[in-house]
Every structure is written in structure tokens, then in C-alpha cells.
């Protein structure tokens, strides 16, 4: 059953305050931004193409971002398009499911505007919209529910079934305080996301039931960056996230970048996430970079991720992922000149899911151990 929501008075009050503040400040700021005379054209143009593939899955992500100056405002416009190509495979005992080739596209647009509002204070405002599925798992599960529930006309509750189109809209704002000039910043950011999901369905003796159509997520982050020594820089991010019908999720990430000698940089990230009743995740990411010439840097990256399995509030049946270990090893290079920069990288990852009972697991081909290859190419130019 869908569990009762715990009550968090502080978060609820904060959420109301956030929505009120965003509702008031965002329209005024966007109006000001739109009608401020343009003093420059595009300052920076960036693009990135990523491709992630394994045996049954292939995902491409193209991102284009323009940064420019409108009077006191700096704006970033980010457009992206994801292409999902999946080989949907039904479990051998699943007599309603059938193998299929799936193709989906997702487009998203994000706008952020920043301006200095005081000597040491910077305000960021953002809006975003996504049309389509956020990840390949959603594409897979949408197809699964379509194959199993669309044909059940006549079953009580079938009128609830509809082939929904996933989308999401978001608002965000952050305030950054440079409390030690050139040495330390602290920022607080808040965001609100309205996610129209393709819902899940379940059937029992009372007929078909549908899960929630809209998930609202409120997130608050505290981030601090510090220069610790002439060769050491740190960043700490703490995030509290509350999503409809789920317990509060807490996440932390600590990053440390160190200069070793004249030509080496060592970057490290340690992160953890926890959410009741049973989700814990942690990861460690380390990168050693070698500055081969003034313009060319080469790097080697290793990453280990582990979680205990996803949160789910299913009734009789679970779509949640089992526990996961994921190890990655990557190589990359970055080329930087005065006006141009580029990055090229390749990463191999190995996903290992906790064992499930294959005789009853409808999603054994979705949550299957697999090898992934990630290829990235990014280019940036400043004008």
C-alpha cells in the first residue's frame, strides 16, 4: 500500500516559503532580464555529445549551452536532447509481454540568470522544462505497463489506464555568499520540480489501480567551496530532498582537488545518499590528471558506486531495482587554448545487481548485469 506520509513541519514551512519567494521574485527578475538592453552577444558557446551503451541499451545526450551578458545579468541557456534506443526483452514466463525495439526522444530547456546583488552576494534564478522520459528505466517500465494493462479492457479500473507523456517543469533559486574573497563561498539553493510521470499500474481482486501521476520534489542544498592551502581546494554539498509519497532523502558530497608537483592534479569525490525505509548509496570517484603540455592534459578516472536498491511504494508488485554495484574506469584528454577548449573521454563501467528470483522477476532484463561504454566529446569557445 502507499504508505502514510511522515509530517515534517520545518520542511513544509520551508516549502511554502520557497514557493512564495519564487512566485514573487522570479517573474520580476525575468521581466527585468528580458527588458534590459543587450550589451553583448553570446560570450561562451559550449556543446557536448555523450553516448552510453550496453548490450540492450543505448542512450545519446546532446547538450548545447550559450552564456551571455545582459547588463548586470549573466544568462545561461541550455538545450538538450536525449535519444533512447532499447531492446525490450520480456521474461520467459511473461505471457503478456513481448520483445520490442523501443525508440524515445526527450528534449529539455533550462534557463538560468545570475547577477551580483551586493559586493559578496550573487543571486541565481532558474526555470526548466523537460518533454519526455528522464531515463531509460522509465521508457522500459512504460512499455511494460502498456503491454500488460492496455489490453485489459472490461477489467474494473481499466478506465484509469492511459498512455501518458512524461514531462517536468522546475523552478530554482540560489544565493551565493563569498565570505572570504577569492577563498571561500557558501551558497543555499532551493528548487521545486513538478514531474508528470508515466504511472505504474497494479491489479488485484478489486481491479486495476494506478500510482500517482504527478510527483512534486522540493530540494534544498547547502554548498561551500574553500581554498584550504595554495594547492588544495574543497567543495562540500549537503542536500535534503522531499518527493511526493516518499520519505526525505539526505545526500552529501565532499570533493577535494589537489595539485601534486607542477604537472599533476588529483581530484577526489566522496558521496553518500540515504532515504528511509531502506535506501543507502555511496560512491567514491578519483581522477589523476597529467598536464602534458601547456594546452594538453590527460587524465585517468576510477569510480566505485554501490547502493542497497531503490525506494518503491508498490502494492503487490515491485518495479524497484535491486541493490547495485557499479565500477568504472575511464581515460580522457582536455585541450585548452585561449579561445577554444575541448574534451574527449571514454569510460568502461560494469554493473552488478543483487541476485533476484529469476522465476518471478519480470524485470530481470532491465536490472541485468551489464558492461557499459560511455563516450564523451565536449567543445567550448569564448568570443
Amino acid at each position, binding site marked *: 500500500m502507499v504508505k502514510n506520509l511522515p509530517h515534517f513541519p520545518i520542511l513544509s514551512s520551508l516549502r511554502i516559503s520557497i514557493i512564495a519567494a519564487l512566485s514573487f521574485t522570479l517573474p520580476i527578475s525575468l521581466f527585468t532580464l528580458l527588458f534590459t538592453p543587450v550589451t553583448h552577444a553570446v560570450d561562451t558557446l*559550449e556543446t*557536448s555529445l*555523450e553516448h*552510453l551503451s550496453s548490450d540492450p541499451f543505448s542512450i545519446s545526450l546532446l*547538450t548545447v*549551452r550559450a552564456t551571455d551578458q545582459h547588463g548586470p545579468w549573466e544568462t545561461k541557456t541550455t538545450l538538450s536532447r536525449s535519444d533512447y534506443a532499447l531492446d525490450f526483452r520480456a521474461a520467459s514466463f511473461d505471457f503478456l509481454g513481448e520483445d520490442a525495439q523501443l525508440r524515445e526522444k526527450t528534449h*529539455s530547456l533550462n534557463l538560468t540568470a545570475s547577477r551580483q546583488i551586493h559586493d559578496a552576494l550573487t543571486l541565481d534564478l532558474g526555470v526548466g522544462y*523537460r518533454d519526455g522520459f*528522464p*531515463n531509460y*528505466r*522509465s521508457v522500459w517500465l512504460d512499455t511494460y505497463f502498456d503491454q500488460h494493462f492496455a489490453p485489459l479492457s472490461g477489467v474494473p479500473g481499466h478506465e484509469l489506464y492511459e498512455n501518458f507523456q512524461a514531462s*517536468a517543469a*522546475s523552478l*530554482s533559486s540560489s544565493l551565493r555568499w563569498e565570505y*572570504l574573497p577569492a*577563498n571561500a563561498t557558501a551558497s543555499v539553493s532551493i528548487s521545486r*520540480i513538478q*514531474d508528470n*510521470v508515466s*504511472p*505504474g499500474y497494479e491489479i488485484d481482486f478489486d481491479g486495476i489501480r494506478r*500510482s*500517482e501521476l504527478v510527483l512534486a520534489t522540493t530540494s534544498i*542544498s547547502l554548498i561551500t567551496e*574553500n581554498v*584550504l592551502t*595554495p594547492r588544495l*581546494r574543497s567543495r562540500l*554539498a*549537503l542536500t535534503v530532498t522531499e518527493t*511526493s509519497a516518499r520519505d526525505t532523502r539526505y*545526500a*552529501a558530497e565532499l570533493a577535494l*582537488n589537489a*595539485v601534486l608537483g607542477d604537472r599533476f*592534479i588529483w*581530484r577526489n569525490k566522496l*558521496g553518500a545518499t*540515504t532515504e528511509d525505509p531502506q*535506501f*543507502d*548509496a555511496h*560512491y567514491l570517484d578519483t581522477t589523476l*590528471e597529467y*598536464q602534458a603540455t601547456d594546452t594538453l592534459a590527460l587524465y585517468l*578516472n576510477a569510480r566505485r558506486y554501490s*547502493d542497497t536498491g531503490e525506494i518503491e511504494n508498490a502494492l503487490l508488485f515491485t*518495479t*524497484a531495482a535491486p541493490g*547495485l554495484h557499479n565500477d568504472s574506469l575511464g581515460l580522457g584528454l*582536455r585541450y585548452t587554448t585561449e579561445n577554444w*577548449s*575541448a*574534451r574527449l*573521454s571514454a569510460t568502461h563501467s560494469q554493473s552488478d545487481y543483487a541476485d533476484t528470483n529469476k522465476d518471478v522477476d519480470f524485470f530481470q532484463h532491465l536490472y541485468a548485469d551489464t558492461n*557499459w561504454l560511455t563516450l*564523451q566529446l*565536449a567543445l*567550448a569557445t569564448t568570443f
Partner: protein
Amino acid sequence: MRSTNIVAIRVAVISSSLVLAGCSTVPAYQQQHLSKPGMTFSDSLVETTQASLTSQMEPGAETSGGAQASGCSACR
């Protein structure tokens, strides 16, 4: 075991916060190493070495609460 992990995480976070929110200042003329492209925490598409698609493989790695980290039909 889980409660032990959570306590350890909380202790690590709190102590890290105290240690890393440093009060000392490194003068600008000593920061030439820190301004290298690989040393900054930039969200530039070129300077960020982690792929955006990593979150497709690792659902617990997102800390930003951004649109990609929001709900889906897999984690209802």
C-alpha cells in the same frame, strides 16, 4: 549495520564541514595552481569530467535535486 552507516556518515559530514569551512586565507598571488582548469569546480561542459549520463547507471549519485533526479515510474 545501516544505523551504524548513517551515524558514520553524519559524523563524517559534520566533522568535514567544520574542518573544510576554513577560516584561513590564501593570498591571490599564491593561487596560481588553484586556477588551473582541472582544479576548479566548474559546471562547464568541457571542464566537468563526469558524464551527465552517469546518473542513468547510478540512481543514488545525484545530489543536486535537479530535474533528472526527480521522480520516475521506476521509483514511484
